[in-house]
């Protein structure tokens, strides 16, 4: 009997002891133990999305992804830390002292060594046979055409959380489309590391980024960059830019600024170089603006191409004297000649015929003072002064492009209207957005509004051809081609005055004038060999135009 009671008591005691222990494990420390267990057998794998590519109009890659690796060390697995650091430093540029100190921090399980390491370096590290080194796959941007169209493309850097983010240009503007969405996989593994096949493994597939197909033509871009660099160097200029647009669709065929930077090594360059001056910087357009005012005057029927204008000396307006650029005066000249001679006096007379109110309205209608809507992150616009702040002298200087600030893209868009029959078209860089399944969204050209009658734009085209054939830049023009264009030389405003020596030389035009394939603007900032657009920007324009004629198979007439 005693033995039975002893057995019962023992069993009861053991039962209570087990119950107490189970209560402790399951209720008191249950949450902590469960979490600990989950970390032991569960594995969370991030499935990164692949950033979309950027391709040119012919499908050639401009920006693609390249496999890269995050290299990290696991200090608790390293056998000999001194040897580890020494060997690693033979492959990677690491600060030995700083890195050794990081490895010695107690309790540290993970020490990053290098990010975005390419596959060759990864293989070299693996060949060292180190224990306690690991890799995590990531991608980095690869630019097969090196720095081609760098200002247009932008670059990918890290955000405040260390994640890839696009900055500037297309990478910035289309960051959400390009980056896609990361996925994840949660699975369970046994102690040997083998996956346990369970139905409740959670998998969220990543959504890869979309591919952007541009209007940009790499052959044209190459030619533009080549001639621009040559021009800036030859004319001893501070910088320069070229934009080539299809006037019918608004598609940007080429866009380049010089000096440029290499987006794969953007940290090696000053941040001032990141800005795309074509969409983000303003300048005074100078005489290139005359074609727009002239076209409006013809559109309003206040003049026609042969209307005679008096140009027999300087004009005085509100106490200011307005002269021609070379201080030469021709007496009575036609409107067409006013453009050929680039006569400031002639333009002021035309401006008076239009009237100040209409002139200012027209400037706004042409899109100056507002964004063009180009799909690039860094677009900015200079503001147009309120109407009540315009004086007679302001309106007078406006007619020859001084006293108004514009961006190069605004100028190209406005002159594009003369090339396409009078329509103001929104400029676009991206032609198509292609999702990873291959579905395509076409970005249709958008005609914002009609700003000239078709007939007016045709007349202006002829006047611009005449200005090129008989103007200051005729020496550089390719023979046998009808190119509509206009030179410009604008002084640079400095502390409320104009700098006497520094200029922005430009040339804007389109060709062939009868059926324009492109409208192009060349700006050369602060050229030192000559301040004039006809001697700096125009030759660059014609060199590129010559390449374009050959590329498009346009014969001389």
């Amino acid at each position, binding site marked *: 009997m005693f033995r039975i009671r002893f057995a019962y008591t023992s069993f009861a005691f053991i039962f209570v002891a087990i119950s107490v222990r189970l209560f402790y494990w399951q209720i008191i420390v249950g949450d902590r133990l469960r979490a600990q267990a989950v970390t032991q057998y569960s594995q969370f794998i991030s499935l990164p999305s692949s950033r979309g590519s950027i391709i040119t109009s012919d499908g*050639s*890659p401009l920006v*693609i*992804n*390249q*496999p890269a690796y995050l290299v990290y060390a696991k200090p608790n697995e390293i056998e000999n830390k001194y040897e580890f650091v020494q060997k690693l430093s033979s492959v990677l540029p690491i600060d030995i002292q700083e890195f050794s100190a990081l490895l010695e921090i107690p309790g540290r399980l993970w020490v990053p060594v290098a990010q975005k390491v390419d*596959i060759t370096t990864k293989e070299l590290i693996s060949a060292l046979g180190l224990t306690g080194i690991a890799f995590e*796959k990531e*991608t980095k941007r*690869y630019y*097969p*055409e*090196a720095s*081609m169209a760098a200002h247009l493309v932008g670059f990918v850097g890290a955000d405040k959380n260390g994640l890839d983010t696009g900055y500037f240009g297309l990478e910035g503007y289309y960051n959400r489309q390009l980056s896609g969405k990361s996925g994840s996989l949660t699975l369970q593994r*046994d102690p040997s590391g*083998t*996956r*346990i*096949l369970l139905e409740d493994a959670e998998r969220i597939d990543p959504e890869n980024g979309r591919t952007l197909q541009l209007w940009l033509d*790499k*052959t044209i871009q*190459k030619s533009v960059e080549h001639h621009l660099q040559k021009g800036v160097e030859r004319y001893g200029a501070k910088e320069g830019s070229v934009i080539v647009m299809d006037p019918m669709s608004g598609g940007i065929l080429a866009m380049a600024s010089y000096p440029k930077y290499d987006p794969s090594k953007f940290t090696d360059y000053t941040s001032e170089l990141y800005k795309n001056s074509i969409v983000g910087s303003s300048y005074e357009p100078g005489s290139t603006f005359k074609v727009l005012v002239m076209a409006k005057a013809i559109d309003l029927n206040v003049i026609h191409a042969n209307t005679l204008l008096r140009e027999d000396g300087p004009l005085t307006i509100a106490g200011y004297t307005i002269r021609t650029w070379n201080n030469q005066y021709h007496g009575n000249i036609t409107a067409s000649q006013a453009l050929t001679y680039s006569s400031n006096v002639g333009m002021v007379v035309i401006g008076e015929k239009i009237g100040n109110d209409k002139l200012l309205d027209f400037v706004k209608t042409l899109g100056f003072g507002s964004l063009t809507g180009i799909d690039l992150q860094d677009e900015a616009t200079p503001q147009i002064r309120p109407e009540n702040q315009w004086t007679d002298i302001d309106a007078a200087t406006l007619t020859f492009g001084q006293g108004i600030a514009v961006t190069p893209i605004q100028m190209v868009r406005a002159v594009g209207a003369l090339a396409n029959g009078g329509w103001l078209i929104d400029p676009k860089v991206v032609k198509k957005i292609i999702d990873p399944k291959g579905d395509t969204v076409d970005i249709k050209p958008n005609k914002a509004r009609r700003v000239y009658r078709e007939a007016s734009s045709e007349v202006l085209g002829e006047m611009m051809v005449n200005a090129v054939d008989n103007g200051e830049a005729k020496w550089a023009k*390719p023979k*046998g081609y009808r190119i509509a264009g206009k030179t410009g030389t604008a002084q640079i405003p400095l502390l409320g005055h104009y700098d006497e020596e520094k200029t922005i030389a430009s040339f804007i035009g389109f060709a062939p004038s009868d059926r324009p394939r492109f409208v192009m603007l060349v700006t050369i900032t602060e050229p030192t060999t000559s301040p004039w657009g006809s001697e700096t920007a125009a030759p660059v324009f014609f060199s590129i135009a*010559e390449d374009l*004629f*050959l590329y498009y*198979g*346009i*014969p*001389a*007439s």
Partner: protein
Amino acid sequence: MKLNIGLLFDKSIMIWLALLLVLQIIYSNQLVNHARKVDELDNMRRSLSDENEALKQQVAAITSLQSIEARSRALGFVKNTRLISLDLSSIMIALHAAK
């Protein structure tokens, strides 16, 4: 009431239990093998995807204008410097003439 354990675990039940145990072991073994296979395939897919990206990069590098320009220079091609147009029986042809 006395419980006769011998009655509950007679021979046939023991055999069934043993069989179920063997089946359980075989099933677990297969599951582990499948899991290993899945892991292997996953790794292979990842490695092929990396290889594919690396190949894409190589193709892009080789077909870039920079490479083509360098190769054409090495092969002796020169940049055309003059554009001439020939009027061949009303067909205009534009040609670039080498220096």
